[in-house]
């Protein structure tokens, strides 16, 4: 049974790693991470991918958080009866409950992931136009008080690059190794859900996604 993974480009590398490790029969298709800057593009771009690969796959799952589509992404997924990963954003996908703890500890936390460290220049500096208007740096970051780098695959080089980012933002940096375990559990959960509903398309209840109730997720852990 072939599963199509439609994934946010910011998670692509990690999703590929997990799929390989699990040996799932899968096709992975990414959506440009640049959509984060234009969240209203997310739902239509995901829908295009659904249209493109649904014929080739036996089932589809979507690896996206609630990334500012104003509910449009879930509308599209409801239309096609497809499940989305049960997490609000990629930081929570990696850090699990620790995500809320970090924010409770310090609300001004700005998160980095391996992806964001690798692409900071393009995603943040260029994305926010700081290359064109460096004077906007303070306007953007004045409410941030620290950086927490959620590490997926630890490397001295990425740690060093994260430090450069922290220096640029004038913020203290904290490291927290998450690995990809949580994301993997989320993906396994998605695969299990799909197993359970085989031949029972009405199985899906959207409320668990929308309300972030993670009972089923807890069962997976």
């Amino acid at each position, binding site marked *: 049974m072939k599963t199509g993974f439609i994934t946010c480009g910011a998670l692509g590398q990690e999703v590929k790693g997990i799929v390989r490790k699990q040996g799932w029969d899968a096709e992975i298709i990414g959506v440009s991470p640049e959509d984060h*800057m*234009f*969240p209203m593009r997310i739902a239509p771009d995901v829908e295009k991918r659904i249209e493109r690969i649904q014929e080739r796959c036996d089932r589809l799952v979507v690896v996206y*958080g*609630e990334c*500012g589509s*104003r*509910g449009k992404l879930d509308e599209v997924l409801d239309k096609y009866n497809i499940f989305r990963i049960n997490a*609000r*954003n990629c930081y929570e996908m990696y850090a699990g409950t620790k995500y809320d703890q970090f*924010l409770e500890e310090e*609300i*001004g936390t700005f998160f980095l992931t391996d992806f964001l460290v690798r692409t900071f220049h393009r995603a943040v500096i260029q994305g*926010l*136009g*700081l290359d*064109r*208007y460096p004077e*906007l740096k303070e*306007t*953007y970051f004045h*409410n*941030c008080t620290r950086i927490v780098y959620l590490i997926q695959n630890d490397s001295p080089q990425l740690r060093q690059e994260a430090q450069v980012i922290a220096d640029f933002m004038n913020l203290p940096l904290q490291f927290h190794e998450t690995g990809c375990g949580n994301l993997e559990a989320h993906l396994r959960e998605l695969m299990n859900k799909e197993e359970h509903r085989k031949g029972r398309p009405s199985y899906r209840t959207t409320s668990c996604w929308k309300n972030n109730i993670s009972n089923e997720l807890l069962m997976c852990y």
Partner: protein
Amino acid sequence: MDLNQISQAVEELEKDKALSLVQQALDEGVDPPEIINSGIVPGLQGVGKKFETEEYFLAELMMGGKVSQACMDLVEPHLPATGSASAGTVVLGAVEGDLHDIGYSLVATQLELNGFKVHKIGVNVPAMTFIDKAKETSADIIGLSAFLVTTIPNCNEVIDYLRDMGIKDKYKVIIGGTETSQEKAVAMGADGWAPNAVEAVKLCKGLMDIN
């Protein structure tokens, strides 16, 4: 002088040019509110339109805000101390957990340019702080900004508290920000939602029964 020139300079983000044109208009004795309404405001609205059509990006939008604010700072001392009634009083901030202040700052600027008295109360604002400030300033409208899916419930909280306290009818509550929508506003019992600053002004005018 042709006030369109000011609008154009603001829209093109030419700060020095916009400032010198505003100064010229003041020197020529143009009515200061006219400089704002026919020069600066249409310029900022032009920036907003370009942002919506993706001709401008976030950075340009923010620069537009900065240019028009600098122009306003130049005009403000020349505005007549009218003491005239404002269009309404608005308490505006980002709800608890939310640090995004660019969106609501633009809303504040547009509301001020349209005669509203705005109390900006910052980011990460607890529900009770909105309510206390609204009471203190005898506000007409409470504006809640939320950009994160995690902070939407904190908009609900303000409305729930107002209801608990039996004072919901005293204030109009409006919401905005990336994660909000008209449907969400209706669901939580807010009095309105707007997708951008220009619409926010229309919404507030409507709530205050101003054309």
